């Protein structure tokens, strides 16, 4: 198995674990953690393809990954702000309980 394939498999595994966690956990914060894991898996994919791809000197993969890290941090901030606001309203972070639009 080529090194690229092994990195891609690790990234796929991380993505699947993040997805499983985001779909099965009750706490909204743990769902956000799953999303962060998925974003990390995508970054790993990007860097693996940058390294083993045809034109690594163009730095495209690395730039994409850097911007992805920045965007993921911004998204985590806004998401967690939302979770805090929802907690203040519903007194819980359990996503199974938040099944109505009207508070």
């Amino acid at each position, binding site marked *: *198995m080529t090194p690229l394939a092994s990195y891609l*498999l690790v990234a796929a595994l991380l993505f699947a674990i993040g997805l499983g966690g985001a*779909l*099965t956990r*009750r706490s909204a914060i743990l769902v956000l953690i799953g999303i962060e894991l998925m974003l990390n898996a995508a970054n790993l994919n990007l860097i693996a393809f940058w390294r083993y791809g045809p034109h690594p000197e163009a730095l495209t993969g*690395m730039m994409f990954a850097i*911007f992805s890290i920045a*965007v993921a941090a911004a998204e985590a901030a806004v998401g967690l*702000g939302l979770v805090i606001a929802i907690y203040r309203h519903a007194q819980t972070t359990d996503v199974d309980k938040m099944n109505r639009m009207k508070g």
Partner: protein
Amino acid sequence: MSIPIFVISVLTVAGALAAMTLKNTIHCVLALTVAFAGVALLFLGLDAQFVGFAQILVYIGAVVILVVFAVLLTRSSETPEEGSHSRTWFTGLAISAGVFAVLGWAVLASVNGLPNETAAPDVNVHKIGNALMGRYVLPLEIVALLLTAATIGAVIVAMHEKARTK
């Protein structure tokens, strides 16, 4: 795949699994830190030093601390009464297993067409700086605007509302 990279991958996947299965939320966050550190080491193994250190600085130094603050502000560190996994956990597990199967099949089935080891790319910070200010200056400015908007948005969303006087 060399032995150190294999060990780091195992550690990363173990951290991610722990992050998604442990009951105590703070333990999940600490396992997530291990997973992030593992991914940063994998970046370093792929000769992407700038991205690796940026990953440590941003994810472990900022995102994890943010998650920890959110956990403490929403009192999620106490054990929940109804269990920490959703009622529909089996569906979620099946979906993620299916996604991994599809992705794994896609990677392994195309293993003949993927390029093999190439020489390590000659990347230094100068080139990254030139690229950021040259070819990628528009995404850089847009990300700056995005970060500003996200900061202001997060503060407004999470701020205490002023007490309504009726």
